[in-house]
């Protein structure tokens, strides 16, 4: 593996990790923008803009864009979160330059009004789709309750109302500032020729104008509020618990991710043995979400209405025991083994490697080899994990549940 980096005159950073033995290559633009960067009246614009990028440029229609991607056989897509918008493609090495040229061209989209109007319908369909996915819906609502007025609580999709009112002019204004070359990176991984992709990047991106672009970073302890919503078509209780954690830049993030595996991995965790193995809940997981300047522990459980009290009592017992006794050496070792093997398997694919290399640069401004992450995970001690428990007390959480209408 060989790492390469180049900064263009307009501050666009191009990075790449070359693996000559890979059979494919991956390319991605990581744009440092998401729902936390939106004013509430344009909530959902980052995600909508992600869709509009595919609608083409002054030169290419939406259909021509799709055709151009499909011609290369690329596995391509994009996603938007609270703080990042990522466009990526995995492709056979001989098509990498072509796909990269295409992404570069698309990063300066036409944002045509007629495309905007049709795509607005698709966004509204996506909002409706997630309403029918309680696992997603409960987390989105809990995030909003936990972050309260903090911008990380903004919905990624926006609401029917905010999307309905959004204009293409508002989107254009947002785009010009947020898709500035100094607010994004272009990353490559896998089997590719660095000189070739660099020249493609220079030629395509050097005219992009740099902007003055900022993100407000504030910590968040969480509201610790409790709320239950009812939906007549649901049959199970969906429960989300959220509490604060370390941020993506914090060296303790490895200890936080190990704690999440110990408490809430889908098998073999404390949640698993106490809730799922005993058939109190069908699913119970906890995840660590590292974000820019803040972080969360987020648990998701679904169970029958009858089991809710027992489940919450058990969860209370698990968190109390963590606060009182901490974790064991044996638990930590097992969690390390799981995370290390997942890391190795994920990074065998150029697409998996692209996301790690890209996000490390976005959050840390740093290249980290897989071995660096492996060593950091190996070095975590029981005391490190216990100090996270002590500092953040994950048992003191915001709670949102959604379930069927209660008759009594």
């Amino acid at each position, binding site marked *: 593996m060989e790492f390469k980096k180049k900064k263009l005159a307009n501050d666009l950073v191009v990075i790449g990790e070359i693996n000559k033995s890979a059979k494919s290559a991956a390319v991605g633009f990581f744009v440092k923008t998401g729902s936390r960067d939106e004013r509430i009246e344009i909530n959902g614009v980052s995600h909508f803009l992600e869709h509009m990028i595919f609608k083409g440029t002054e030169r290419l229609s939406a259909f021509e864009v799709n055709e151009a991607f499909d011609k290369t056989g690329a596995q391509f897509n994009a996603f938007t979160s609270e703080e990042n918008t990522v466009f990526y493609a995995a492709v056979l090495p001989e098509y990498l330059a072509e796909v990269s040229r295409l992404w570069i061209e698309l990063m300066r989209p036409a944002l045509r009004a007629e495309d905007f109007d049709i795509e607005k319908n698709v966004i509204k369909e996506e909002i409706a789709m997630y309403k029918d996915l309680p696992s997603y819906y409960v987390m989105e609502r809990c995030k909003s309750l936990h972050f309260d007025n903090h911008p990380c609580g903004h919905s990624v999709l926006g609401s029917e109302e905010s999307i309905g009112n959004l204009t293409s002019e508002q989107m254009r204004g947002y785009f010009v500032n947020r898709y500035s070359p100094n607010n994004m990176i272009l990353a490559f991984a896998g089997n590719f020729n660095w000189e070739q992709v660099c020249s493609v990047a220079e030629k395509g991106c050097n005219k992009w104008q740099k902007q003055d672009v900022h993100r407000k970073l504030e910590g968040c302890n969480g509201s610790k509020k409790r709320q239950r919503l009812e939906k007549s078509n649901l049959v199970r209780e969906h429960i989300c618990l959220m509490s604060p954690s370390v941020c993506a830049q914090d060296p303790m993030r490895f200890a936080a991710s190990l704690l999440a595996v110990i408490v809430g991995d889908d098998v073999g965790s404390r949640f698993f043995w106490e809730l799922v193995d005993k058939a109190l809940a069908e699913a119970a997981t906890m995840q660590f979400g590292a974000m820019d300047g803040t972080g969360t522990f987020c648990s998701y459980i679904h169970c029958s209405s009858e089991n809710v009290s027992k489940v919450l009592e058990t969860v209370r017992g698990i968190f109390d025991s963590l606060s009182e006794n901490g974790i064991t050496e044996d638990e930590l070792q097992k969690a390390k083994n799981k995370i290390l093997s997942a890391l190795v398997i994920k990074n*065998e694919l150029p697409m998996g490697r692209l996301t790690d290399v890209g996000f490390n640069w976005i959050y840390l401004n740093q290249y980290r080899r897989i071995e660096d992450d492996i060593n950091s995970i190996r070095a975590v001690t029981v005391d490190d994990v216990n100090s996270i428990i002590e500092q953040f007390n994950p048992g003191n959480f915001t709670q949102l549940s959604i379930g069927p209408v209660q008759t009594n």
Partner: protein
Amino acid sequence: MSERLDKHILKNGMVVLGEPMESVSSAAFVFMLPCGAARIPDGCCGAGAVIADWIFRGAGDKNSRELGDALDGLGLHRISSVGSSHITIGAALESGNLAQALDLYADIILKSRLQEEQFELARQLAIDEVKALDDDPRQKVMLKLQEQFYPSPLGRSSLGEIAELKALTAERTKQIVKDKFNLTETIFAVAGKYDFDAIVKQIENLFETNQQKQLKPVRPGSKADKYTHFHNEGAQVHIGLMTETVKPTDEDYYNARVAVSVLSGGMSARLFTEVREKRGLCYAIKAQYHSLKEAAGIMCYAGTTPEKSQETLDVIIREFNRLSEGINKEEIERAKVGLKSVLVLQSESSSSRAGGIGGDYYMLGRVRGLDEIKNRIEQTTIDSVLGFLRSSRFKDFTIVTIGPNKLAIDY
């Protein structure tokens, strides 16, 4: 890319397959046990899901907790699924831990404790999973679709039926394990970094018996109704649609795959273009090839708000039927490049290769090499695909919807 396939057959008929991958340090393995939903006796629908959980609740000299801890200690990522024909269990892990993992899996398959009190928990979880399906209409619509499309019992739900799960006993389920965990029809597949000689030796030690016993083949019965609607006051109507096509053993298989790719291979394919890009009817729209050994179909999903649902279904059906009218040169080229590219990208993942070679062997009795598949895709032409589509037009569509409103079906 190495095109090597390792193969060994035990005296009892159990097949051992391997595909080495040079650039990885992981390995993935699967055991395909002939105990899938369609092979479960009538009246026990869902027993597969219970068994896939129960066998992990203690095996050999380890109780449930000790076994779970031992698996976790190896850092392995479990693979577990119940299909129509098989229960597939296995794992992806660092290759250094492979031998230890195989010892544990041999205990799980051959020496599971199958204790009564653990059975109750496994069964309760299986019942809860079926209930929870009502909160996931997207998954439910596709399960119901397969149930309705394939002649019974081939499409039987792997999750099961609540009434039958409630009636299931530990004794009955234990008997199913005894009858169906048949080594003669078990396939073991490994991909990634491994030493095949060592694997064969270990598998022989663990699984060799002198006994060969074939299971009775599944006898497909009749097909269910053409259209079923499940009422749900959700935000969308979830549409599942399926129509018959050729199986992987058919000489037209690659023509069928290319045709599906023209329909829904990428974002420039017809369904995405007509349903989402031109009309904004859906966010999610996708058709894909789906096959069992006995039958195959093209399966399509769309989720859309109630007021757009009828138009969505009408446009989808129109696109299926329009396919045989003509395909242009660019379309077929994109479809072929797309299929070949997916093939190569998937070949980089040890889990996907282990599943792939095992599946191939079951379906075809042999494993196709990457080059063979690429060549066969390459050999398809507009004429061959159109010839196939015209000689076997889409006749019947099986349709399932879940949502606030029913649709008019006049196809």
